[in-house]
């Protein structure tokens, strides 16, 4: 079911005209209202009036995550602070968090794009949606909430965790749709099985999963175990949260809601736009956001776009699920992790050398992070209990910093390969 037929199935020429008008307006808005963008435009010698078609977007400056941090907390604001009705941020584990400040218009927009997302999986006002994304600063919970409310479905705002209660609610209230991370959906499936729940007998029929990378084999697993159709959804705090792109009933590629969030693929080294079908870095411009509009945000995610017609009838460009990163960021159980964070923790610990390697595996349904740390003379002891204490100590420190549990394993010195230039820090065994 198409939520907004007019915009989602708009002929592409009309869509381009709409995007052109919106890009002109947003370029003018940020130039006039956001000093950060005025100086960026000026540095490139570009003016809002240089935008004549949507393709002129390539003339505009990029925005990076570092830029966003530099202007923390309110530097991207394009309206009066009094018009901001809600603020969300990223977890900020790697530095200052990224801020998304929403006007009422932005919240309405969020509800719209999430209504489109849920409609793709057939959610209507008759549905009962169990929203197991975390509520709070994290954009997942409330973003999904606004979409559920916009559709007029019944929302169960249970938030994340508390598995027993999730299963009870699902059974007692007859939830028909589920929103959470893909790994948590499998965790629910396993826990339910242990409790003797037969999911084929429950009304649950559809799930919307995002916030972490997953694979086709994982989809097959989720669909078989929960007896539902599982859809991939995509979003990021820097743009709006969930509701940037989503899979339609074809369950193939993700339609980008490009009338609001204009995607480009660029060569990450040169910054030049790449044609459809070619893999490169995904870049987004928010065409309609009022509170914190963003011009050409470099996501560092790697994917490609296609404008081939989709059997569902939607005309919106489609993106492949994220294929990788241009940096070394890892996503573990929905949390973004950079190896540099681990290095920071190790450097600060006495007797520990920052020679480490990260091993990521999916055990059962959960991402497991193992941190191999090289033994040093200072760490070493003839007593196993002291070695184990050290491992626990490093684990605790890492957990405080990463917000995710990891398992530390001490290995022999020089056993982690040194390579010239960038060390091979990460071994990701997840098949995504």
């Amino acid at each position: 079911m198409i939520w907004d037929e007019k915009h989602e199935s708009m002929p592409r020429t009309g869509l381009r005209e709409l995007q052109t008008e919106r890009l002109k307006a947003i370029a003018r808005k940020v130039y006039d209202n956001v000093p950060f963008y005025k100086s960026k435009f000026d540095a490139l010698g570009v003016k809002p009036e240089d935008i004549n078609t949507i393709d002129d977007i390539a003339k505009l400056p990029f925005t990076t995550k570092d830029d966003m941090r530099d202007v923390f907390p309110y530097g991207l604001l394009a309206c009066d602070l009094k018009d901001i009705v809600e603020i969300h941020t990223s977890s900020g584990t790697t530095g200052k968090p990224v801020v998304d400040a929403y006007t009422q218009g932005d919240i309405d927009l969020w509800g719209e794009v999430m209504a489109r997302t849920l409609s793709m999986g057939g959610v209507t006002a008759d549905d009962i949606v169990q929203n197991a994304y975390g509520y709070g600063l994290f954009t997942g919970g409330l973003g999904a909430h606004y979409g559920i409310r916009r559709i007029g479905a019944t929302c169960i705002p249970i938030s994340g965790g508390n598995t027993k209660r999730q299963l009870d609610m699902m059974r007692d209230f007859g939830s028909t749709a589920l929103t959470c991370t893909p790994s948590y959906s499998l965790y629910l499936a396993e826990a339910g099985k242990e409790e003797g729940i037969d999911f084929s007998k429950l009304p649950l029929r559809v799930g919307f999963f995002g916030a972490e990378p997953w694979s086709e084999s994982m989809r097959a697993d989720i669909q078989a175990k929960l007896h539902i159709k599982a859809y991939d959804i995509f979003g990021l705090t820097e743009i709006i949260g969930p509701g940037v792109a989503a899979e339609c009933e074809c369950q193939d590629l993700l339609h980008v809601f490009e009338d609001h969030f204009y995607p480009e693929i660029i060569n990450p080294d040169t910054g030049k736009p790449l044609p459809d079908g070619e893999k490169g870095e995904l870049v987004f411009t928010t065409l309609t956001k009022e509170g914190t509009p963003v011009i050409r945000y470099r996501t560092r995610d790697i994917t490609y776009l296609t404008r081939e017609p989709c059997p569902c009838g939607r005309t919106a460009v489609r993106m492949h699920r994220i294929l990788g990163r241009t940096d070394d960021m890892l996503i573990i159980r929905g949390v973004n992790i950079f190896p540099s964070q681990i290095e920071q923790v190790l450097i600060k610990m006495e007797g520990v050398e920052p020679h480490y390697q990260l091993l990521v595996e999916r055990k059962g349904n959960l991402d497991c992070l193992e941190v191999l740390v090289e033994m040093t003379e200072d760490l070493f002891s003839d007593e196993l209990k002291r070695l184990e204490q050290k491992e626990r100590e490093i684990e605790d420190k890492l957990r405080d910093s990463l917000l995710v549990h990891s398992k530390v394993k001490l290995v022999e010195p020089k056993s982690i390969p040194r390579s010239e230039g960038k060390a091979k820090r990460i071994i990701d065994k997840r098949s995504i």
Partner: protein
Amino acid sequence: MTVQQISVFLENKAGRLAAAASVLKNNAVNIRALTIAESSNYGVLRMIVSDPDKTMAVLKDAGFTVKQNPMIAVEIDDREGLLFDIVSLCDAEGINIEYTYSYVETASKKAILFLRFEDTDAAVQMFTRRGYKLLSPDEVCKI
């Protein structure tokens, strides 16, 4: 009186113990007693050797993480109940044993218990006071 124990960190990977043993062999290190403590990921090879300083040096050179620490070597007539006598003595005096391993001399019918204590000095005093024979590094070399 204490003797030095050498500990070597070994990952639980095929060939690691052999690699350490080959270094010892190539440098003619004489092992008097040894034990391996293991966890699921790694092991610690603990040895009493003829020349601890040299052993340390050659293992370090070969890239191993090595440590020395004092142990007490108690020599007693080999008989039943020996372990109990020693352990209950330590218990009675409130001295904690971290771990122990042993060596039995068939010719002289003597047993040597190597003991690792939290408080080695207190243990030395206790054994001396009770008239136990503690071996010196030289004596250990000769066994």
